[in-house]
């Protein structure tokens, strides 16, 4: 993070100095800072509204409702976790919260799942198979409503701020599918490599 920030700044300053337009750096700093504040403030409207709706969803137990439907999928995704183990419950809850776009709720549930998986993992410092799958699911992050993006598009006076929901759902499904396949693929190749090493 430090290097990226430094890199963006320094390459900008270098180019500005070399092209004799060092004044653009000052302009860039001032407009950038102003935009940062204005955009964050502008996003308050949609984020406040969305988290309000999500709070209702949370209290209504929508996560648990969705969890019921997701159980078969979770059993298939995490074959190494016993289906009556508490880890399974947290894994499913984390998946439901992600799908609903409850980012604030998904992370604590995911961390709880990690703890329970770690107890199954014998407190090793190497990730277990199930952990890798959980991480693959969470980095790809299946989302149905990209609320922040809709808000940002609104701020720039988009004619149809929500028209990217469809393309986002399509892309998120493809990426999550790919994450599941890649996770299985690398687990498989790792096992083959291990077996070879033992033999060789």
């Amino acid at each position: 993070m430090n290097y990226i920030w430094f890199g963006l700044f320094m390459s900008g300053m270098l180019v500005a100095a070399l092209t004799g337009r060092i004044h653009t750096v000052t302009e860039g700093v001032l407009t950038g800072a102003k935009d940062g504040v204005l955009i964050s403030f502008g996003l308050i409207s949609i984020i406040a509204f969305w988290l309000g709706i999500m709070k209702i969803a949370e209290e209504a137990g929508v996560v648990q409702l969705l969890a019921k439907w997701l159980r078969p999928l979770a059993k298939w995704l995490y074959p190494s976790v016993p289906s009556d183990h508490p880890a399974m419950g947290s894994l499913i809850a984390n998946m439901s919260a992600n799908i609903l776009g409850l980012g604030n709720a998904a992370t604590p549930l995911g961390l709880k799942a990690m703890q329970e998986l770690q107890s199954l993992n014998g407190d090793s410092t190497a990730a277990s198979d199930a952990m890798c799958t959980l991480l693959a699911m969470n980095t790809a992050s299946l989302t149905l409503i990209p609320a922040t993006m809709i808000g940002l598009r609104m701020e720039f006076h988009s004619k149809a701020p929500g028209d990217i929901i469809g393309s986002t759902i399509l892309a998120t499904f493809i990426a999550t599918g790919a994450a599941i396949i890649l996770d299985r693929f690398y687990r498989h190749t790792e096992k083959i490599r291990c077996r070879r090493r033992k033999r060789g």
Partner: protein
Amino acid sequence: MSMITDVSAFALPATIAAILIVGILRKVSLYDAFTEGAKEGFTTSVNLIPHLVAMMVAVSVFRSSGALQLFIHAIAPLLHFIHFPAELVPLALLRPISGSGSLALVTDLFKHVGPDSFLGRVASTMQGSTDTTLYVLTVYYGSVGIRNPRYSVKVGLLSDLVSVFASLWAASMMFGK
């Protein structure tokens, strides 16, 4: 394609309606729950300010100095073969590393080409369809002291790559170039 356009139009109202109906059936005090959540939304947005200011300043200097244009010109010939818009490369590179950084890049892009341009829509899809891989890996593995993530980093970054091309494809399908 009209089906996906319909999904876009109906997804938000349908989700809100479904949540309100389940809420009232389960006797949730809707109004109180909403305002409580909205209050959290306020703090979330305010907490975003320092991050977004930091990243917007850096991105803005990077663009106004001409460094961004230079970068885009330098890589454009390489990407010509795969028909990938060079303007989106900075976003694709930063998306797995920093959520606020990529949000700043999307904002910058909206400012210059508009949210309803093709690039604006692809960028929206890229930003919305995935999470910040390295952040998630750090938080999740860090929380239980895992030091060997095995193939997780590879899987996370490769699926981000898939997400970049899937976003480009999905947006081209829906909106045309």
